[in-house]
C-alpha cells in the first residue's frame, strides 16, 4: 500500500484531518511497529581509526544485535568498563 493510499483510507474516516497530521501519526506508528517487532534488519560497516574507541551509530539503527570485528564475531561486554573514557 502506498503512502497516498494509506492517507486516503484514513481520510475516509476522518475527512476533516489533514495529510500532515495523518503522516505524523503514521510515522510514529511505523517507528513503534519497527521497534516492537524488530522486523527490519540491516548490516552497517565502518573502519576503525587508531585508538579511537567510540563510533556514532546511524540514526536508523534501533538495536545492535551482533558485531563482527575484522571478520570475526566478537562478544558484547557484560556490564560496563570499570574505568571509562570518551576517546
Amino acid at each position, binding site marked *: 500500500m502506498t503512502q497516498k493510499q494509506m492517507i486516503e483510507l484514513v481520510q475516509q474516516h476522518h475527512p476533516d484531518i489533514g495529510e500532515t497530521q495523518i503522516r505524523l501519526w503514521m510515522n510514529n*506508528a511505523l517507528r513503534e511497529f519497527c521497534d516492537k517487532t524488530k522486523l527490519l*534488519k540491516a548490516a552497517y560497516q*565502518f*573502519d576503525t581509526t587508531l585508538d579511537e*574507541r*567510540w563510533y556514532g551509530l546511524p540514526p536508523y539503527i534501533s538495536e545492535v544485535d551482533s558485531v563482527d570485528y*575484522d571478520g570475526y564475531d566478537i562478544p558484547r*561486554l557484560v556490564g560496563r*568498563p570499570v574505568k571509562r573514557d570518551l576517546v
Partner: protein
Amino acid sequence: MAHTDQLDYTWWIERDSIAIAKFSENENIDDRFSGPPEGKTVTLFATKYDEAFIPSDTGTGIGMDETPAIPEQFHEALVYKALQKGYEIKLGRDPRLFNVAAYYRKGFEDMVKDGKRYANNERISGGKYHIKQHDF
C-alpha cells in the same frame, strides 16, 4: 579453534555510540581496554527503523507513491494507528467513540504480535530454537 587476536575484542553501547576495544583481563585496571588499531573493518548486524513518510517523492524517505519496507501484510497496521488517533482526538466531543478508538488500537497491537511472529522465523534472523532434553 585456533586463537585469533580478533577474539580479544569486545563491544558495548553508550550514548548512541558503539565502543570497540581490546580487552586484556590480566592487565592492570588502567590498561585493561585498549586500541583498536587503524583500518579494521567493523560490521554491525542490527535492527533498523523504516524510512519516514515524506510529503513528496523528491527527498529521502517514503514518498506519496512509495511503500514502506515492512512486508505488505503489515501496512494496514499504520492505518489502524492513524484511525485510532483520529478517533481519540474526537473523544471530547463524542465519548462513545472510545470503543471505536479501542477497536483500532487492538487492530494495531494484533498486527504487532503477528509482526513479532514473522520476525522470529528463520528468514529474518536465527529464529526459533528449542531446548533439547538430555538424560543424565
